[in-house]
């Protein structure tokens, strides 16, 4: 008997927890409120099914519990009922799938006016590259990576000379402009993830992956790595700042291009050289200190 009551409490408790608990998603900062909407649709449909099934069970346990002399009914099948339930389930599933696939097609089709921004993951830091005045990112190759060329931009590619290199530092993005994040890794799998943007994608050494979004509010957002990448995984934080157009251009003006960085008297990126070498402990210390 207690079990019938507990089943009811499980449903009531779960629903109350859902609506009253303080744990909910972060305020959104991108155009992907479509995704939030599909999550809400899914919560409603699955919530109703969960409550219905468990409450029905609770009723059965209460109503048909064993009593002296009681006997179960004998009904092996009920074709009509079984087909009806199948059809209703099919309708529910379709109601989830159709909006889901609709939003997915938006997610994977990048608008033509999106600016490319390259993210490079390595154990355990983030670097970025922006196309220069030509609007094109130069090609890159892991084999070209050296202490002086940490992102592996192919030195002979003219498109790469004016690329802006942001090594192990914050990325800034202008508000309201769609960006295509082009994702690379030089060592293991990583995943570029900002909870407020709702989007994420793995980065695979040897491949280039992508996702796109439009920042919709200014602010500072923490980048997390969402794919296990070794011991330093939980420390692999980064920062993306969404600026007004003006602030963004001011920041961009201070950055250095690939050509400037590869000039003989280079000024930046000195700490990369110190962090090189296969010493995990030293590397972890550098990451932790940051």
């Amino acid at each position, binding site marked *: *008997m207690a079990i019938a009551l507990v*089943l009811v409490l499980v449903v009531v408790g779960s629903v109350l*927890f859902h609506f009253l*608990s303080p*744990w*909910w998603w*972060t305020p959104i900062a991108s155009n*992907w409120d*479509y*995704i939030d909407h599909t*999550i809400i649709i899914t919560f409603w*449909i699955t919530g109703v099914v*969960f409550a219905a099934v*468990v409450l*029905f*069970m609770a009723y*059965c*346990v209460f109503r*048909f519990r*064993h009593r002296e002399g009681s*006997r*179960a*009914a*004998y*009904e*092996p099948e*009920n074709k009509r009922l*079984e087909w009806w*339930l199948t059809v209703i*389930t099919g309708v529910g*599933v379709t109601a989830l*799938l159709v909006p*889901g*696939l609709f939003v*997915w097609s938006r997610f*994977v089709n990048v608008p033509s006016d999106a600016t490319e921004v390259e993210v490079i993951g390595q154990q355990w830091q983030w670097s970025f590259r922006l196309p220069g005045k030509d609007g094109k990112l130069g090609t890159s190759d*892991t084999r070209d990576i050296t202490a002086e060329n940490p992102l*592996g931009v192919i030195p002979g590619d003219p498109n790469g000379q004016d690329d802006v290199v942001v090594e192990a530092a914050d990325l800034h993005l202008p508000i309201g402009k769609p960006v295509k994040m082009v994702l690379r890794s*030089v*060592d293991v799998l990583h995943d570029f993830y900002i*909870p407020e943007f709702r989007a994420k994608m*793995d980065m*695979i*050494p040897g*491949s280039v992956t992508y996702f796109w979004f439009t920042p919709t509010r200014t602010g500072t957002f*923490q980048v*997390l790595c*969402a*794919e*296990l*990448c*070794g*011991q330093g*995984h*939980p*420390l692999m934080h980064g920062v993306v700042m969404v600026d007004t157009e003006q602030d963004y251009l001011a920041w961009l003006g201070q950055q250095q291009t690939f050509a400037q960085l590869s000039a003989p008297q280079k000024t930046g990126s000195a700490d*990369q050289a110190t*962090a090189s070498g*296969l010493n*995990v402990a030293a590397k972890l210390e550098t990451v932790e200190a940051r």
Partner: protein
Amino acid sequence: MVDITPADAVPPAEVAEMELYHPHSWWTKYVFSQDAKVIAIQYSATATAIGFVALSLSWLMRLQLGFPGTFDFITPEAYYQFITMHGMIMVIYLLTALFLGGFGNYLIPLMVGARDMVFPYVNMLSYWIYLLAVLVLVSSFFAPGGPTGAGWTLYPPQAIMTGTPGGQDWGIILMLASLILFIIGFTMGGLNYVVTVLQARTRGMTMMRLPLTVWGIFTATVMALLAFPALFVACVMMLLDRVLGTSFFMPAIVEMGEQLQHNGGSPILFQHLFWFFGHPEVYIVALPAFGIVSDLISTHARKNIFGYRMMVWAIVGIGALSFVVWAHHMYVSGMHPYFGFFFATTTLIIAIPTAIKVYNWVLTLWRGDIHLTIPMLFALAFIVTFVNGGLTGLFLGNVVVDVPLSDTMFVVAHFHMVMGVAPILVILGAIYHWYPKVTGRMLDETLGRFHFWVTFLGAYLIFFPMHYLGLIGIPRRYAELTDMTIMTESAHHLNSFISIMAFIVGFAQMVFLFNLIWSIRHGREAGGNPWRATTLEWQTPQTPPAHGNFGKDLPIVYRWAYDYSVPGAKEDFIPQNVPGNFGLSKEPA
């Protein structure tokens, strides 16, 4: 509809009975035994022992997550080793081994009316190779560098690189070797289960009269035989990458400033191979649970399972569909995004046969005569947790909804609910149900009820709130949940609460272990058929069943496994081996 075989119309025996192997010494009877029942107990005991190791590891990781910075010995390195070993042990060495090697070995011959598995010697080898696999796995705790910390998915390149614990030490090598051994051992057992079900059923036991337990285990075994080879080749290839320096999964890599000698491999190929095995694996664990819980509900509600034929086709359909959904684990892996359309569709379609099973379980309760025994309580708890975990699967299966939730605690909560808690609740219910047959004694009722309530409510309180940590965006596999802007004070409190619940639920399992051992001698005597069940294992002349299971003559089956509460019949159950159409049995045909 009426399909009762009249006593005078039993099909004749097609072949003479095979001579059964008879052990001659204590060693061949109890240690190197070829009796499926002994092998089943060996499998179960080994799986339970290694399962308690996994339980202890989960405590250690919950200590770290619930009380960060308090326990210095849990370094990030150790934490990743704990989660990796916990995950791999639970999925492979506990759940797969216990359902198939344990329950499969014990129940298949008894339930289909056979004297033993068809290849008893190979069956014995299967166990000993499994034991070897477990020992190799455990040895990695003592190897230089400790066990691998690559996560149970073992994704390369990090699995075999310096930045991952065990990557360039022995850890990953021992893990891969252990998996390879496990698969070899499993294949020997698996072929046995399949051939026994197909070839050794007793007279009158048609496929459509098999108890759903057998259908679940049978289908899961067929799937495992098809799915494990993908893991096998993935392990061999990674072993070659690690030991011989090949580049199956290794592209050009710069590791902490140094160019590695790999080139041209594909990390994502491993993911495809892994999940081609890994997704069916979910159902390899789930289908036996589906089958067993159907029989528990039917027996303890004294009512035939509702929609038997639909249940069989749902099991087979889920089994088949589960081979075309694997990439839903890879929506944000960087595979071609258009795959998402296909895999989201197949994944949501699989919800339909799964839902049918749930409906049929609860409709079996409808107008039943529900005895709230401990197995029944566990079955009810299974339905709650399985429905909960199945429904959150609709979030993660629906490609775009998966994007924000993937790799967060939501995923951890989902798969623990659906393939951790739910199948384990079935295992526990099944142990309370069949323990009297295995030992001749009942498990203690008071301890059992305590165990049930703490396990069910505790596990729900662990994993239900955990979904909401994932909804905030808190990633999984973080050894330290500090310095994160989304990690609020209240989220830390929730984590501490979850950890405390985990300790309590773990403690209840110790009580259960005590009950298992104590009741062997002190439990109430059970008799041959304490639950008044219809299936053949309850109709054996001796309890526990002797070598050869059924005495001089094998039972003959006259009816399906679900003749409970047949109108007009005197008792509320008619065993499968009882002839005659009394009452109005309406076995579906």
